[in-house]
């Protein structure tokens, strides 16, 4: 696998317990910029849907006067998505339902500075 400027961020996140994949996506168009996901995870679908959700949250938050979104978590029955963005790029993590969200949140927020 080739190394990119996002390899460090993706490696740091994918080695967390319960993580099924990590992606860097363009918030504007939902396209994968870089990714490392386990077999069975549809990276393109995750990118599109997570970017749409993050974009929606950002726009809604700004419309409600709550400022810019820095971190987002979607919890579902069988898994969760965490995302943090900077400019047009969003780091997205897909994880099992039982993955430690506090740890994931810390790591993803620490990593977001490298999204340039």
């Amino acid at each position: 696998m080739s190394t990119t400027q996002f390899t460090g961020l993706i490696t740091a996140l994918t080695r967390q317990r319960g993580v099924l994949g990590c992606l860097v996506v363009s918030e504007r168009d939902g396209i994968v910029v870089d990714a490392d996901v386990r077999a069975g995870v549809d990276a393109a679908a995750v990118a599109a849907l997570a970017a749409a959700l993050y974009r929606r949250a950002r726009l809604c938050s700004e419309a409600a006067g709550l400022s810019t979104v820095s971190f987002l978590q979607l919890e579902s029955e069988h898994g969760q998505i965490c995302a943090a963005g900077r400019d047009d790029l969003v780091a997205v993590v897909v994880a099992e339902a039982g993955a430690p969200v506090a740890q994931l949140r810390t790591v993803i927020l620490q990593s977001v500075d490298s999204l340039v």
Partner: protein
Amino acid sequence: MSDGIRRLSDELARDPSSLVFIQLGEELRRTGQLDLALRVALRGLERHPHDADAHDLLARIHVDRGELTAAFDEWDTVLKLAPDHAGARKGVGYVLFKQGRLAEAERYLSQASAQGGGDPSIATALHMVRRMLHFSDGVGGYVAGASGNGTNGGTPLAEAGRRVEEEARRLFADILGEGEQTALLLDASGLVTAGVYMTEEGRDVAQEVGASLAGIREDAARASEHLGLGAWSSVTFETDVATVAMAPVLDDSLVLVAAARSVPLGLVRRVLQQCARRAGAWLGATS
């Protein structure tokens, strides 16, 4: 004249027997051109006297003109022509509600809700009527033992309405306490069903915030479904100034908690769970 109205008018001029008059009348009604809408509906009904949707249109125009009796008669005609017409049941329920006949309104709205295909406006109206029934005897009088005697500043119906409104505003008050957090219950359209959202200046901006944030629900549900994650249970996001958490309640409602960034994330999530349970019980108790 809008492009849509012009197009529909042209279409009707080309074919006066067309049912497009229903769309045209509705567009005119929605844009407040009630006299014109009435003329279009009446002329269309001369050609299509047995069309239920045309009578439904005429009923809605009458409501907008404040002619509740005429509206009731039209919806009554609709139900004779099409007994399962959810719009007419909702309409009859609305007229009965406005007339203070809550028990009858509840019956029609229940039927409309059962066949309305998830129309959130029916669910909201039904919930409101049921809460008002809780505070009244169903026909505008008072339940024995209910606090207040209905003589303070309005009719018993208006008093029941005020009590429902107050109950809704304070639904989460004891959970939230005096902390820097607020909670709202939104219906499927993003309209506030319960709770308040006060600014530092003391202005309630619940409707604006609710309308802005409710759209997240669709994307959360879509992402969960398409990625095979099952039903979504919460969305939490942090901004520079606030933490916002939301969770689905029953079929089509959403509870939302917003807290200052100083409130720990774990506490926000606990408050969200408590508010979701409270909202579910409140809505479920009257469903």
